[in-house]
């Protein structure tokens, strides 16, 4: 709200418009490019994710238009392959993950009472590298008219070998996919190390682990999943790259290799990835439901330990994606059991959320509506998930639209609703302004109806036998009506997203800051800062006495937190260009191997140059004063 007294407005994200007049446009842009402020990086993550989310949505709309009626040829089979590959890859790696990262960045330091993450420049590096990865993945859309081969990734988001081997997918499409995912993986892992150390080491005095907000807890679990799961796909992709580039046969049966090796490595990453997508949303819901029920989260430690259990078990279930590959009865049975086990901590969470709402003084704000929507839709997705845990049932459902329905209920009805809830909940904190509540109700209604219209019929056509990934289908199979309904639903979703974006732009453009520090009467430390927070977040680092410091301070019992009378030195690192340059070098280095697939010598020279630039950036980074 108030202009920070001893911090220059130029460093302040939400006051950029106020500072606009005082600094030139170029300087303003530069201040964003060189920022290492976790709040600005969070906003950058959010805006980039929104752009990629819209791109993934457009791909989905083309897919749904194509499938609206039987026998259509709006796009050909090859384009359709590229569309569903890019839709999946974009939504997972460039939509939901960075949107969660936006909240990690913005909220976690505030929630633990810190002034920034522990390595602010590494944080900026993660963002820029993520952006490079997103650009590399989507670059093929721009260059495809100019080249004489397939360049848009078209091997599915799962990239199964041997389909993705050079023999079966020539051209550079898979190389772009490998390169993009490697870059994104490094970005995610760098952020993972950063947040784990931040959460362990930068908590305000008195904030014990079990006093941390549940969102911060889920962030911690997710970061552990990221740093442990991503190395598996890194190796899987390296081996695939070697197969394609150097003629090895890791996955090629002709040379003794094993295609199932890819599936094991991929799903060893891929299943934890599912929890990487959903746990942040669960954390957000665990903040929103108590706030708008005016009750503490029911059994908060159980919710936290359930999250940890989900994370741990998530590493032991990967082969349930592979029941149809014939692993044998023993493997099928054990993976089936471990998969069903995951339902227990998940069920614990759902019952805890229900018990939180029970008897509460509910305020049905838009944030609350999205969280309630999350609980319902995620439960539905979870229930169809348990069906797949049974190998005989899975054999019937594998590769059918039933599975598509399942994971969209979990990832759209679950993760995306949770993230939208987070946007409505934290927007006042991030901007000092509110999103329109009246629009918000409509947006929730439109998205809720559109979502169920799109994805519920997929259960039915899936059970009726419609396979995934077919670009068209014949009439007379009984799939026409559900498919038409699904397509209508997809456009209803698109309308809802459009309304949301209009309201977002409208709200951001509003001049006056109206949100108080704690507009929702919430409980955690971020509501102690101004809305939007000052550059250094807290004038005085609070001393925390309970798991709901701000609530307890306002409503009792107990002091909640106190502000010690100290004159601590506030250290805000100066802006730095090296994170961006190092990120560009790393992306360039990895993209060189992509070029090496076409012109080997050129690629090697390019890689060496990139490595030199990278090491130079590292040294300059290290020597930069003030950090």
């Amino acid at each position: 709200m108030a202009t920070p007294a001893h911090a220059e407005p130029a460093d302040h994200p939400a006051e950029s418009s106020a500072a606009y007049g005082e600094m030139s446009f170029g300087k303003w842009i530069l201040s964003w490019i060189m920022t290492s402020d976790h709040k600005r990086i969070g906003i950058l993550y959010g805006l980039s994710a929104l752009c990629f989310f819209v791109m993934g949505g457009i791909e989905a709309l083309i897919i749904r238009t194509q499938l609206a009626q039987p026998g259509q040829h709006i796009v050909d089979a090859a384009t359709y392959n590229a569309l569903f590959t890019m839709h999946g890859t974009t939504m997972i790696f460039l939509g939901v993950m960075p949107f969660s990262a936006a909240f990690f960045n913005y909220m976690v330091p505030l929630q633990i009472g810190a002034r920034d993450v522990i390595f602010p420049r590494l944080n900026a590096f993660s963002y820029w590298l993520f952006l490079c990865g997103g650009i590399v993945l989507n670059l093929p859309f721009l260059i495809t008219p100019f080249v004489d081969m397939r360049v848009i990734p078209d091997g599915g988001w799962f990239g199964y070998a041997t389909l993705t081997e050079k023999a079966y997918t020539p051209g550079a499409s898979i190389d772009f996919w490998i390169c993009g995912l490697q870059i994104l993986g490094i970005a995610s892992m760098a952020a993972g190390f950063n947040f784990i150390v931040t959460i362990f080491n930068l908590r305000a005095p008195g904030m014990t682990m079990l006093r941390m907000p549940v969102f911060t807890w889920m962030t911690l679990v997710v970061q552990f999943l990221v740093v442990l799961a991503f190395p598996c796909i890194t190796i899987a992709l390296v081996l695939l790259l070697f197969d394609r580039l150097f003629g090895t046969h890791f996955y090629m049966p002709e040379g003794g290799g094993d295609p199932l090796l890819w599936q094991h490595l991929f799903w060893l990453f891929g299943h934890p990835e599912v929890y990487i997508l959903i746990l942040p949303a669960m954390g957000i819901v665990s903040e929103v439901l108590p706030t708008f029920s005016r009750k503490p989260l029911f059994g908060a430690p159980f919710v936290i330990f359930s999250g940890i259990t989900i994370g741990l078990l998530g590493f032991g279930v990967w082969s349930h994606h592979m029941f149809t590959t014939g692993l044998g009865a023993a493997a099928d049975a054990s993976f089936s059991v471990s998969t069903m086990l995951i339902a227990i901590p998940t069920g614990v969470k759902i019952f805890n959320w229900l018990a939180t709402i029970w008897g509460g003084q509910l305020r049905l704000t838009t944030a609350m509506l999205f969280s309630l929507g999350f609980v319902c839709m995620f439960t539905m997705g979870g229930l169809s998930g348990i069906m797949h845990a049974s190998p005989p049932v899975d054999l019937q459902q594998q590769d059918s639209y039933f599975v598509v329905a399942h994971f969209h209920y979990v990832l759209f009805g679950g993760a995306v609703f949770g993230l939208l809830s987070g946007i409505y909940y934290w927007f006042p904190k991030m901007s000092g302004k509110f999103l329109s509540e009246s629009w918000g109700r409509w947006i929730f209604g439109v998205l809720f109806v559109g979502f169920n219209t799109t994805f519920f019929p997929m259960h039915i056509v899936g059970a009726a036998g419609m396979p995934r990934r077919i670009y068209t289908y014949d009439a007379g199979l009984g799939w026409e009506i559900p498919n038409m309904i699904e397509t209508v639903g997809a456009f209803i979703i698109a309308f809802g997203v459009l309304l949301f974006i209009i309201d977002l732009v409208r709200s951001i453009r509003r001049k006056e800051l109206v949100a108080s520090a704690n507009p929702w009467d919430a409980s955690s430390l971020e509501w102690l800062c101004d809305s939007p927070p000052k550059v250094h977040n807290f004038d005085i680092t609070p001393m925390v006495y309970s798991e709901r410091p701000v609530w307890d301070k306002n409503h009792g019992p107990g002091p909640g937190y106190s502000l010690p009378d100290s004159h601590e030195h506030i250290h805000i690192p100066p802006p730095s260009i090296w994170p961006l340059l190092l990120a560009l070098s790393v992306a360039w280095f990895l993209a060189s191997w992509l070029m090496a697939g076409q012109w080997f010598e050129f690629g090697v020279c390019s890689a060496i140059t990139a490595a030199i630039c990278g090491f130079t950036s590292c040294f300059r980074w290290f020597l930069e004063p003030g950090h």
Partner: protein
Amino acid sequence: MSSAATADASHGAGHAPAAEYTVTGVPAYKLAMWTFLGSDCFFFGSLIGTYMSSRGKSLNGPYPLDVFAPAVTSCSTFDLLLSSLFMVLAVHYAKIGDIRKFTLWTLATMAGGLIFLGFQAYEFTSFVEEGLTLKSNLFGCTFFVLTGFHGAHVALGVFLLGSLLWAVRTGKLADNGITTEVIGLYWHFVDIVWILIFTLVYLLEFTS
């Protein structure tokens, strides 16, 4: 921008990595390294898993017993283990602030790493001469990728030690006890991975 820069001009000199208050008492860089090593466990776990699941599935030779020279690899293993001892000494002298002995043992550690890389280069060359290449069979590709990535880790370790030595000798790094310890963690980890590789890839072939 400028306010932060001027306010912290006093902090600009020297480089004290995350000397601020931490809740756990573990320095930030050390915790970050432990996290990275956990991640690296899965990295090498995937590679070793790939090697083990492909073991004995080569359709044609050369097979491991055709090319392995256990005496040579034992020497290089001994050399790498010895370098871990040197690393411990370097950390010790960094902590008590004896720059001269710290320099000596860091150089010794780097030499150990470089000798190991030399052994690896020799081994790779002789294997290729005997017909084992990345493309020749499944053993070739899994072996070269696994040991190649380990070699890259050793090379990075040597590079880190060299950079550390440069930063300490030129006075660019004030607090080198913690930094040396953190790089030491990495060095020992890479050694432990080699013990696994040496056991599973080399020694296992001579058991039957």
